[in-house]
């Protein structure tokens, strides 16, 4: 789960990491009020779960409160890569200006199986290019969680990137706080870009990105409550409630599969044979009528869908039981979108007979099913 910038920064502040003064607004009027309280020039920033806000016009400076209202008006409602801005953050500017932009992040390094800290004195928007072309400018240390972050690791980074010595202590404390925040929040990522040295000679987090491990949300109720359900597509919300894993895509062949690997493979084979999958859908264990019905409703709520491929592998759930569930679900749903059904595994033969008996088009192999679905959608 991703936090918005303002949520990430409030979390940082809770762990003692300095952030600019500021607050969020959902209307130009609210933006004006926040800017008035802050006084002076402010920055108005779109709060959306995507990058590239600056280039899309989602981040603007404002000279005063009236200007902040005007800029908020421009940004609120702005669509950035499909993410519509519903909230803006209004922050004071870094006190005394910005002397230096630093990149700082903690993330889980899956290869090393440890939290990794990355930092660079080349912070800012171009950090990815720095990583690609000047990797020696990115300093990395790995933390063994059983002993925790050590002072020498902060020293290594500070020394390596050339941070002025008078800021080492402040940096060490900030990094220790960020690590505590990372571990205490079950984060997969905690990123500050840029972390700046202000004109007053102190460190401050001007931006923040935090991703929480979804599997750990059960023990992070405060963070879980930060999820903005309004921006989640209704279909995904409905799927989540039914225990179905669903991701909307752009194609025209709806997919219903049990198991993530098989669901991905079903999409792959559709594409391989020239078709285009409309979604990823893993129906999970079992495939009773109620679950199949919900899944179908979700798939068919996408008007682009011209055909549906249902691919269920009968393992623990037997093929004949699955077939009965599908027949019952299709009875309950009124649609003329063609369905191609493929059953395999335990009792697949009996299942296919049931489907054939209900006049449903079936396929024995996955490639056969894909070809038939592509033909039906054409």
């Amino acid at each position, binding site marked *: 789960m991703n936090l918005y910038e303002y949520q990430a920064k409030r979390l940082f502040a809770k762990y003692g990491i300095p952030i600019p003064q500021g607050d969020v607004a959902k209307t130009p009027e609210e933006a004006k009020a926040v800017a008035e309280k802050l006084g002076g020039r402010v920055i108005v920033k779109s709060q959306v779960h995507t*990058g590239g806000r600056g280039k899309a016009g989602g981040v603007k400076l404002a000279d005063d409160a009236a200007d902040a209202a005007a800029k908020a008006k421009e940004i609120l409602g702005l669509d950035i890569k499909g993410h519509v801005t519903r909230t803006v953050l209004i922050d004071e500017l870094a006190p005394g200006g910005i002397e230096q932009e630093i990149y700082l*992040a903690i993330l889980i390094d899956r290869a090393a199986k440890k939290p990794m800290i990355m930092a660079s004195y080349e912070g800012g928007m171009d950090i990815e290019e720095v*990583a690609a072309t000047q990797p020696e400018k990115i300093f990395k240390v790995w933390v063994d969680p059983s002993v925790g972050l050590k002072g020498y690791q902060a020293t290594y980074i500070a020394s390596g990137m050339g941070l002025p010595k008078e800021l080492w202590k402040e940096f060490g404390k900030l990094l220790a706080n960020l690590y505590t925040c990372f571990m205490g929040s079950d984060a997969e990522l905690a990123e500050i870009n840029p972390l700046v040295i202000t004109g007053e000679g102190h460190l401050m987090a001007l931006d923040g990105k935090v991703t929480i491990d979804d599997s750990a949300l059960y023990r992070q109720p405060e963070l879980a409550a930060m999820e903005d359900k309004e921006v989640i597509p209704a279909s995904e919300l409905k799927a989540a409630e039914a225990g179905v894993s669903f991701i909307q895509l752009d194609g025209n062949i709806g997919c219903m599969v049990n198991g993530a690997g098989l669901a991905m493979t079903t*999409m*792959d084979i559709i594409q391989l044979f020239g078709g285009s999958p409309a979604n990823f859908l893993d129906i999970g264990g079992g495939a009773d009528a109620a679950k199949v019905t919900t899944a179908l409703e979700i798939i068919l709520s996408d008007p682009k869908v011209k055909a549906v491929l249902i691919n269920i592998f009968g393992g623990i759930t037997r093929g004949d039981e699955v077939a009965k569930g599908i027949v019952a679900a299709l009875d309950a749903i009124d649609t003329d979108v063609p369905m191609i059904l493929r059953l395999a*595994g335990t009792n697949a033969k009996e299942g296919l007979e049931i489907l054939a008996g209900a006049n449903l088009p079936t396929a024995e192999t996955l490639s056969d099913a894909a070809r038939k679905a592509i033909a039906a959608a054409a």
Partner: protein
Amino acid sequence: MSILVNKDTRVVVQGITGGQGTFHSARMMAAGTNIVAGMTPGKGGQKAVNDVPVFNTVREAVEQTGANASVIFVPARFAADAIIEAADAELPLTVCLTEHIPVMDMIKVRNYIDGTNTRLIGPNCPGLVTPGESNLGIISNDIVKPGPIGVVSKSGTLTYEVVYALSYNGLGQSTCVGIGGDPVAGTDFIDVLEMFEADDQTEEIILMGEIGGNAEEKAAEYIKNHVSKPVTAFIAGATAPPGRKMGHAGAIVDGDSGTAQGKQDALREAGVRVAEHPEQIVEIIMANR
């Protein structure tokens, strides 16, 4: 032979009295698995499904029944401790099927078990089966068949699909191992490849990977240098939408690695026969035998 489990494997089921534990224990026993004990704290002294004796801790189960492997059916919030308990009881093998274990928990678990002699399969996996001998997990015994093919896979249902096709075409399996797709797992492709390479019964190997991470690339490197048996591979997810991108950090760390194309190229370069869709796996093997 076979790898990891056989007729002599004595299994304790952690969480045997739960719904999943009861259901799958009965299935495993029907498949011939020698389940000697169950474990549920507070239910020691009771009998579980098929009169399996229940103990309060794994250590007691080991002390009193000589169990040498466990299968874990407990909810995600208790699963990490269940793995540690299995390792602390010095079981050589533990198989954890639980999904959604927090990644930091698994980092700590991995750090702990790396200092022990316990091998963990999973989590978030369907387990493993040596057909005709022992089945530790939820791979349906109806679809497997003893034979010469070693199967290792990150994905559950995809494994079933391919194993079913193998058996249907008369190609049996030495052992099928589902290692799970979690970012931090107990056993990697390489561990299993090494075992298959050393196993007399295994004549060739199927490897099924997924997009993300670099386990398949590492496996390719390993195969090139250490595996003499033929390997056929499939990578799922060529068309999957890009996952959540972890800020700038993800791009910095991953660069271009982790794509299906990159993994297929690495495997081909290592001499692996790469199938474009799962049905091709069996076709390739049949054509080359």
